[in-house]
């Protein structure tokens, strides 16, 4: 069974890579501009943000939780960062650090509510997402911050080594390595997965599941805040609508990568590839000259297809074991 699931999982990752390559080939055949330096730059940049959005949901899913407030935290933190830098005049680096700490605290509030009330994370984060968005609009009156510091704007436009590589990609890769390390090599990572797989069993074997859930929501909030910082740098302004369309990609990226929504399992590299696919589709569909509005449609269909295929594979694996 172990070998089978191992092969199954590697296949899904390999398959995902193939799908990405196939999409890239298709888009570059259809449009010359797809592999242009500029498009590669913007595509990899938006993909990096999508990957981190996916991670914010992935850590919640790995513990059998959900965070419907990923987008709302993203919107709140974008505007908070914009306010810190533009209205309060705080220098870029301290502003980013304050923003990330507050994002973690906001996530922690979700965790404390989930643990304190014992109500499932779906309802809690649905309610808090409404609260966070409300706070954001009440405090900013829905007006964007367009005069961000020059160094912050330059960071979003920077190309490393003269190549179409944004520093945002580096941020994403470092996050990937840290998350991979967390799940692979630390006791906490294993505790998170244990809580996700079977809360009762984890508790009986001495895992403090309340602590784990609070940590997971804190981490999810932090990652949503990080995605917000990246998105703000990319757009060079803090826009209140940020995060309103994060719900779908936040679930698509981990689901494509093989992180199940039932908890107890995680695929960090898979989520990265999933986010990359979402980003590629984003810019590819723009290139195709068909309306951007169909992007939603394709993302939905692709999500259904991959989850359906995953399900089929699982059924086959079960049959193989029975035989």
């Amino acid at each position, binding site marked *: 069974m172990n070998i089978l699931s191992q092969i199954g999982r590697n296949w899904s990752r390999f398959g995902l890579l193939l799908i990405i390559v196939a999409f890239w080939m298709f888009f570059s055949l259809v449009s010359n501009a797809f592999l242009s330096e500029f498009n590669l730059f913007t595509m990899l940049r938006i993909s990096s943000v999508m990957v981190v959005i996916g991670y914010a949901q992935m850590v919640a899913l790995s513990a059998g939780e959900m965070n419907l407030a990923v987008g709302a935290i993203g919107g709140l933190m974008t505007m908070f960062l914009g306010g810190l830098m533009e209205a309060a005049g705080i220098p870029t680096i301290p502003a980013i650090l304050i923003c990330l700490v507050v994002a973690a605290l906001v996530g922690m509030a979700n965790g404390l509510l989930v643990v304190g009330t014992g109500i499932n994370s779906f*309802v809690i984060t649905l309610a808090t997402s409404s609260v966070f968005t*409300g706070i954001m609009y009440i405090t900013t009156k829905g007006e964007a911050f367009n005069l961000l510091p020059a160094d912050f704007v330059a960071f979003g436009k920077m190309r490393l080594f003269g190549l179409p590589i944004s520093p945002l990609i580096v941020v994403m890769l470092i996050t990937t390595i840290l998350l991979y390390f967390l799940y692979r090599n630390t006791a906490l990572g294993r505790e998170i997965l244990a809580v996700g797989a079977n809360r009762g069993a984890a508790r009986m074997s001495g895992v403090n599941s309340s602590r784990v859930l609070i940590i997971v929501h804190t981490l999810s909030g932090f990652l949503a805040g990080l995605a917000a910082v990246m998105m703000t740098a990319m757009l060079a302004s803090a826009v209140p609508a940020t995060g309103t369309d994060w719900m779908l990609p936040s679930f698509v990226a981990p689901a494509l990568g093989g992180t199940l*929504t039932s908890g107890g399992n995680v695929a960090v590299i898979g989520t990265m590839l999933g986010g990359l696919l979402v980003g590629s589709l984003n810019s590819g569909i723009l290139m195709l000259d068909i*309306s951007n*509005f169909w992007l939603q449609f394709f993302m939905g269909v692709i999500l259904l297809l991959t989850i359906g295929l995953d399900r089929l594979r699982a059924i086959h694996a079960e049959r193989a074991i029975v035989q």
Partner: protein
Amino acid sequence: MTKSPFYKRLINVDWAGLLLLVILSVILMSVISPAFLSTYNKYVVLRDVAVTLLVGLSQLVVLAIGQMNLSLGTIGGLSVVISGGLMEAWNVPVPLAVLIGLLVGALCGLLNGEIIVRTGINSFIVTIATSSVFLGINYGMTQAVPFYNLTPGFKAFGQARWDFFPYIAVVTIIVTIIMAIFFLRTIPGRQILAVGGNVVASETSGVPVNRTIVMAHIISGVIAAIAGILLMARLGQAQPTIGQNWLVPSFAAPIIGGVALSGGSVSIMGTVLAAFLIAIIQDALVLLNADPYYVQFLLGILILAAVGVDRLTRQRRQFE
């Protein structure tokens, strides 16, 4: 399957506290702002209730089987642009256009239900995906441009009122009564509650589980379509964005009304009262000249408060 448990659950007066809250907020508002009891303002509140309640009922049907429908907003939007488009572009008569709109809702619900039943994937992920599909079709077809030239009679119906009573509320009342009778008196309604209560038990006692799940999703789709079409009539235009902000209220109305997400029980009366409470809060913020964004904030707090109170009372009952 005996008769009394379901019946008891339905007439359970869990909503007594909520009724008190609604009455208190009406009294409070009429003291603070005399405009609250004006004919026009009462009309505005009822107009909001008419749509919010349907949105809540659409979610309620699916919650009753222990599932969710995150796509109800985009189902509403898709039904709106299709029936609005038929009226404007092809001059299709209103009854036929509305009927086709409802059919679209039913088909979307059928699709949700069939995918869930056939793949065994949880309803949350399926409906998140289909919601994106429905929205994509809607925007792809309309390019996000509304249809403004709806049939005059249809628009007139949406804005008509008898004193303070909006015509569109008649539709909502009929749907609400049908749903109450459906859950209380009909076999399919009971089967939905049975499946929500315990899938295995209902399967062994002969309930067609898969068919019941699909049916709940179809009903949810149709009610979402009705909500969308009423809103279209009221606005006088087929807005493609209709339904995009329904997600939170769709859960808020049943949850504040005391419906459990685990399925197996419904409270129509609770959902009705919750829809009133939400509409009164919205209206109060307008009358008090408060920032309209407080609605979002308060809605979130209200959900948290409702589930918190529910939790507390349940714990207390356990102690007794």
